[in-house]
């Protein structure tokens, strides 16, 4: 998460293929790229395109990464996002579920890939859940995404939501690292007279 000027915050979540030292170093490389590029004002679309080209040029062809770049305008709650083949983040509020689906393929596969930036509103009281595939893998079953979405529909408390998400994970299936990020926008407070 990187705070940017003009009341914006960049949330980036990536998952690198493979395991071990090579994957860890590639993660570090991607994080450094995101930090340096966002400091020069790069938006999600530019981030996705340039990191994709960087990975295609400088890493072996069997290395790739899924990523989601989410630029949050803190005042308006508008979210501009690019989802490069990552598990769809979920915007949810009071029973309403909106997955932010893929807008391109994973980074590092083809240098001339086109990515698309889309926007979604994060209304007061709404939240967005970002996660890596380690979460859905560790839930198991046929439709782990549906189980996650079903769980989100009834929850409003963040800590409770996180605890319930973790309780869905089965230890014996948790073979991959898991990252879960929940961002909730506070509901508007009604003024009292």
């Amino acid at each position, binding site marked *: 998460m990187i705070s940017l000027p003009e009341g914006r915050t960049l949330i980036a979540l990536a998952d690198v293929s493979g395991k071990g*030292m090579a994957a860890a170093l590639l993660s*570090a490389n991607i994080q450094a790229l995101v930090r340096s590029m966002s400091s020069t004002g790069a938006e999600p679309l530019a981030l996705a395109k340039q990191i994709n080209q960087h990975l295609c040029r400088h890493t072996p062809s069997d290395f790739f990464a899924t990523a989601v770049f989410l630029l949050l305008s803190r005042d308006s709650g508008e979210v501009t996002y690019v989802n490069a083949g990552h598990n769809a983040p979920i915007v949810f509020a009071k029973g309403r579920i909106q997955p932010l689906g893929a807008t391109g393929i994973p980074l590092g596969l083809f240098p001339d890939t086109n990515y698309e930036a889309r926007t979604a509103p994060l209304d007061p009281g709404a939240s967005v859940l970002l996660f890596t595939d380690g979460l859905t893998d560790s839930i198991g079953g046929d439709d782990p995404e549906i189980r996650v979405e079903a769980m989100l529909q009834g929850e409003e408390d963040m800590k409770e939501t996180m605890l319930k998400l973790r309780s869905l994970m089965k230890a014996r299936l*948790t073979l991959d690292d898991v990252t879960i990020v929940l961002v909730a926008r*506070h509901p508007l407070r009604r003024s009292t007279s």
Partner: protein
Amino acid sequence: MSRAKRVVTWAAILVQGYAIYALMTRSFVWPILWPSVRTVFIVGIVVFYLAYTVMNGLLASELVRKTQLESEQAAARKIQRTLIPEKLEPLPSYEIETTSPSAMSAATTST
């Protein structure tokens, strides 16, 4: 361990067993006492130690490989942990909750 190495290791274990059997019965084809006891003893000991050395070598190489893999994974995990921020900047009007339990350990941060 590769399939070929596993086959060789098991063959070495069986050869050791057969050498012990030969030394106990004083024959390679009991109940026929063949060849001479002296030959059985010498060949049995040599075969036993050869198989023992092959088996030990393969198991030791596997142990080294596993230890290297584990230390590499531990280093990779260390790198990954340093990439995950310990504390997040608070966002006014927003609440953030994160967790990144790895396959081996767990940690939670929130703002």
